[in-house]
């Protein structure tokens, strides 16, 4: 996902929020990961918005994508220049209405935004983990989120919501803890990466690995592999947009010049944009986290991990009511992948709604202001909320 800091045009916001931390799996009770490795202690950064009902029935769990964090909405301080990454969707009266629901968003395991990841301190060495950090999976991320839910005393989740890699976690939640999930909204996502998606991730990882500063992941005390990470981000950005959105946004327009420079400076606006996105990204993201999270996404395979190769079998474990949404111009996780999961859900008799939203902004469309998406999410949540109260 890209960074879109979209302020609500009506100025409505959930207001000031605070990042909190929860630590579990203290040795000797480390978490056994899917790979068989052990990890602990694990810290999960999270934020909550709204008020938890007395019967704890109004929980909406938001799961973020590759570069996101727990800061889904609101501001950290009065002079904070930008709100959380999905402020347009989460807040009072918005698609996910914080007046009605208790919203939780946590930073994923392996990330670098407050939860334990390769840039965290390894208690055994008192140094950053680097490549000693075990490979984590989407399943491991969800297990960590479940631990947070247990910590918060939440037994039922009204809805798990997420796009892209966040959508993978949504699907994982539905088959791993079916008794906890009342409904689910997987957006712009897939049950398994296509070869195309893996290919782009691999090129992005190789850009980091090829940076001499990467130094086998051990760079925390020296110069960072900023060039590699920036190139990785540039590749990502291409896959998040679309032919149409790039044509509209940049075309062949030149950046601050009227003619070619006849060298390798950024002539085109699209070059300049990608370079800017790359440079901005390295200021806040860890290269190793990028490697670990993209790998987790590539490994994710709902059919194989939960259905012995069958999507139908995998979804036969789920109990949730689903709202599946895809976007017409998303070529990273195209509509056919959403349709395939919808067919499997139908086959096993799950209650599923599906909408393919016409949008020109490619994979990123789920993050951008979209009246239709907000209305869909709002209507769906209202329905499932009223159904559990009947």
């Amino acid at each position, binding site marked *: 996902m890209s960074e879109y800091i979209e302020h609500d045009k009506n100025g409505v916001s959930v207001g000031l929020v605070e990042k909190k931390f929860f630590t579990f799996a203290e040795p000797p009770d480390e978490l056994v990961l899917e790979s068989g490795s052990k990890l602990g202690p694990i810290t999960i950064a999270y934020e909550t918005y709204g008020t938890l009902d007395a019967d704890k029935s109004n929980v909406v769990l938001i799961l973020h994508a590759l570069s996101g964090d727990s800061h889904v909405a609101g501001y950290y301080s009065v002079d904070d220049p930008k709100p959380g990454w999905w402020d347009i969707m989460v807040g009072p009266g918005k698609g996910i209405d914080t007046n009605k629901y208790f919203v939780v968003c946590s930073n994923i395991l392996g990330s670098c935004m407050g939860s334990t990841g390769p840039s965290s301190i390894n208690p055994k060495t008192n140094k950053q983990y680097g490549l000693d950090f075990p490979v984590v999976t989407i399943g491991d991320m969800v297990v960590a989120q479940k631990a947070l839910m247990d910590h918060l005393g939440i037994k039922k989740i009204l809805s798990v919501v997420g796009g892209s890699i966040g959508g993978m976690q949504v699907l994982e939640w539905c088959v791993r803890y079916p008794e906890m999930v009342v409904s689910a909204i997987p957006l712009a996502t897939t049950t398994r990466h296509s070869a195309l998606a893996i290919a782009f991730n691999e090129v992005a990882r190789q850009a980091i690995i090829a940076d001499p500063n990467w130094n086998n992941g051990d760079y925390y005390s020296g110069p960072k592999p900023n060039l590699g990470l920036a190139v990785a981000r540039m590749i990502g950005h291409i896959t998040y947009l679309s032919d149409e959105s790039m044509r509209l946004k940049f075309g062949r327009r030149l950046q601050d010049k009227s003619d070619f420079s006849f060298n390798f400076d950024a002539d085109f606006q699209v070059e300049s944009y990608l370079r800017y996105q790359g440079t901005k990204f390295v200021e806040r993201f860890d290269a190793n986290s990028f490697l670990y999270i993209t790998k987790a996404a590539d490994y994710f395979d709902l059919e194989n991990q939960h259905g012995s190769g069958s999507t139908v079998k995998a979804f036969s474990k789920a109990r949730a*009511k689903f*709202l599946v949404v895809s976007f017409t111009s998303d070529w990273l996780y195209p509509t056919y992948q959403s*349709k395939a999961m*919808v*067919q499997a859900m*139908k*086959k096993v*008799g799950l*209650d*599923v*709604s*599906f*909408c*393919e*939203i*016409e949008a020109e902004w490619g994979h990123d469309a789920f993050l951008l202001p979209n009246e*239709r998406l907000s*209305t*869909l999410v*709002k*209507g*769906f949540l*209202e*329905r499932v909320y*009223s159904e559990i109260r009947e």
Partner: protein
Amino acid sequence: MRFDLQIIASWIEPGSKVLDLGCGEGDLLHFLKEHKQVVGAGIECVEAKVAHCIARGLSVLQGDMNEEVLAYDDDVFDYVILSQTLQQVYEPAKLIQSMLRIGKKGIVSFPNFSHWGIRLQLLIKGHAPITKELPYEWYNTPNIRVITIKDFRRFSRKVGFSILKEVAINSDHHDRQGHIVRFLPNLRATYGIFLIGK
């Protein structure tokens, strides 16, 4: 709600499972959910209509009904409804067979092409009939089939499904109200509505 949908709704047992093919903005499903405690699902191909349905709390899938019916298991619905769409279906026999595979019963309604008004237009004016039920010119109509009440009965014998109940109706100008036509329905009714079974 449209008069033909009111008739269809009156045929549906409370608490049943219903699939509405081409559910539009979900008026029938909404009514059935509110008044008959039905567990409903809909299929609709127009994004804006699908979004409208989901936003009003219905379970609706965007897609082509001819393909979407294939992915359901046998007998998962009590009723599968196809209202005022049969005349637009490319393979009607195949679709009706699918409806009766995934549902115990089917409900089909369509504009009756042998209404006297239509007959007169063709006989006297000599051009392709245009009515409020079938308001298109020959060159822009989505209605690729002309069906009469009589033809549908014949079709049922040919395809091998049974007609459990049938009603012919005349609806008023806004389709909100109407009455049942018992005398010479094939000549006098604007719509035929059929409850069908295997």
